[in-house]
């Protein structure tokens, strides 16, 4: 997997998302929790008049987010969500994945300047919300 990626920081680790799946990066404003939604969803946010679900990327990756500050708006067909991240590092070419990883949400990992960068599987992440639990 190579090509242009958006590189983000989550809990001191680095991850990258293929740029074709990224609509924009926005500030993580006020979140409105939706009681009864699946655990991956930490709430909905107001993105210029659009209500967008925000996913807890850190906990999906088994991490503890430091201070989510940005959301990366990712899109797969009609499925659109904001992924909460601590910061956006940069946008640029990523070398081919050189490492195998064992995570349902990663396609692999690449070494960038000696730092291991996990390559996020946007499709798997956006498809992970299967049957939400009804409230009450």
């Amino acid at each position, binding site marked *: 997997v190579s090509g242009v990626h958006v590189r983000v920081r989550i809990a001191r680790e680095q991850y990258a998302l293929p740029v074709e799946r990224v609509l924009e990066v926005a500030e993580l404003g*006020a979140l*409105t*929790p*939706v*009681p*009864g*939604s699946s655990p991956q*969803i930490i709430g*909905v*946010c*107001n993105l*210029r*008049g*659009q*209500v*967008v*679900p925000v*996913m807890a990327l850190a906990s999906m990756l088994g991490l503890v987010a430091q201070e989510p500050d940005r959301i990366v708006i990712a899109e797969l*067909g*009609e*499925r*659109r*969500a904001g992924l909460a991240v601590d910061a956006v590092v940069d946008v640029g070419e990523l070398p081919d994945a050189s490492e195998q990883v064992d995570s349902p949400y990663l396609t692999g990992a690449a070494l960038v300047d000696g730092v291991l960068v996990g390559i996020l599987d946007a499709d798997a992440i*956006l498809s992970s*919300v299967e*049957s*939400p639990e*009804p*409230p*009450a």
Partner: protein
Amino acid sequence: LSPSDEEIHELVRQEAGDCLQRMESNLLALESGGGGAGEVDAILRDAHSIKGSAAMIGWRKAADLASAVEDSMEQARERGGLPAEFVDPLLRAVDALGRALEGETEAVAPIVEELASLGGAEPEGDGSSMADGPGGAPSRETAAGSGAGQATIRISAAKVDRMLDVVGETVLYHRRLEHSLGDTLRDGRQASEELDMGEQLLDELQDSVIQMRTLPLSTITASFPRATRDLASQEGKEVELTIDGTETQLDRVILEGISEAIVHVLRNAVAHGIEEADEREAAGKPRAGRIELRAEPRGRMVAIQVADDGRGVSADLLARAEEEEGSLADILAETGFSTAERVTDVAGRGVGLDAVKRHVESLGGGLELQSRPGRGTEVTLLLPVTLALMRVLLFERGGRPFGLPMSSVGRVVAVADTTSLGNRPALDLEGQVVPLSDLATLIGTAGPPLAEHPQAVVVESLGRSLAVACDELLGDEEVVIKSLGAIMAGMPGYLGAAILGDGRIALVLDPNHLLKAPLGAMALDQPDETEETTHTRVLVVDDQFAARELQRSILEAAGHRVEVAGDGREALRLIGELADLDLVLTDVQMPEMDGFELLEAIRADDEHSSLPVVIVTTLGDEDSRRRGVEGGADAYIVKEEFDQQTLLGTIERLTGR
């Protein structure tokens, strides 16, 4: 292009140029009466030869146009001469053909259309397998689109929704801007006028975007006649279905889901409403039953009515509805819902009606049912024109705003005393015991403790009620309902979300889901004897639903009898009708007739001039206070300091009770 191709093209242009020149002069000759069949044939030949060579090298549009000219000339030949009205269009066609051969094809489609309309002949297209060149793009649809009087374009629904999002956000942004400019505006009249103008334009823009989401009812009615016919033949009955008002516009999302509900109502009418042909004949009705489906706008709603001339519901059921003061729709829906084992004709009519009712209510609409025994039944589905806008009651719990469609809100109460029902808290609302539940618990979240006497919204549907306790009522508002997004689609419990003026997101709760929650299923009618009281009869006048209902609940809890009015005009009418009214409690700012005008009208009326009037003002509104006192108000209460003691104390003081 290889040089040889280009050479061929040039050759075709030259030849065609010669043809076009001849065509032009022949046309002019025919127009001046100096020609005959020979000229007509010559034009035909030239048009045919241009068609052939253009088609050969793939210049599709030029070929189409030449073909259209050919068709027109063919007609002329059949008529024995060129009709005068053919000349101008044909001359334009020759010009356009010349330009089309140079690659300018914009004019082709309208002219093909014009030629076709001359004699009613369809222009003949060539095979579509040819390569694109100048004028190569297929043209039928384009021609129809640009030639028709009402041009339409296809836009994806998602794009319209996105546009609505942006427009809605711009409206909110505008309001925030106006708010933050506040003081500055008071000095600059011009700036304020400009802002007002901007607001008007934005409202108009929002309306027109919402209009884009609507489609005519005819998009779903096509299958109804067939479905009704099949049902009728299954039942061995004769039924005629008429459909009117199919041009009525509805939100496409509503249309998608409503077809099944309408078919259900039609099925009920065929199966349970319409009698057997012999039975009808014996009753003096035509053998074939009639079902009329009518759609028409009703205020901000659309009414879809299904009326049959069948046997109607039983007199027993009508009597029961009257006795219980319940709506026939509720009783039928409930009957069909709760007593599946009692399969009678009556219950049969209700089977599935609860589902229809739930569906229309979840869309913010309602179900009405009228029936006359022996004469027929009329079921009305009341639907909002658009799902985009919904009137909701907004309230807060745990610092977060929530909304409920106004159509599902029965009333708002200030919880004073709670009784218990099945060991759980409940409210006694004039003899009806309604379970009381914390909103936070209902939706499975935690919140700070409720106030000792919290406010509660009574949600009603399908004859069940539930009081939902919250921290604070924010009032009712018309909001744009937005989807929670594809990822959360299918999650029950919410109708969507609304973005409030301050940018916060309010989750809009699905009332039917709330009522299905464990506590919601416990509503029971307890035929408690309502105690007769000798208390005061008070008229509460307020245009805000929440404020009105809050006052009502406080007064009723204290044993007063309460009437309500939404503005001064309605209040005056009630004052005229109700002989034993003891006191009027009125808000100041209302549409139609405000509180002061109401006060003035009461004082000017000989019969009621001594009726005590209490003005409810907002804090710090000294002007209102003074005007109230000057106008002869007996007391004023400040909204922000509104509590039970003040209100009840004031009433006691003024009425001596």
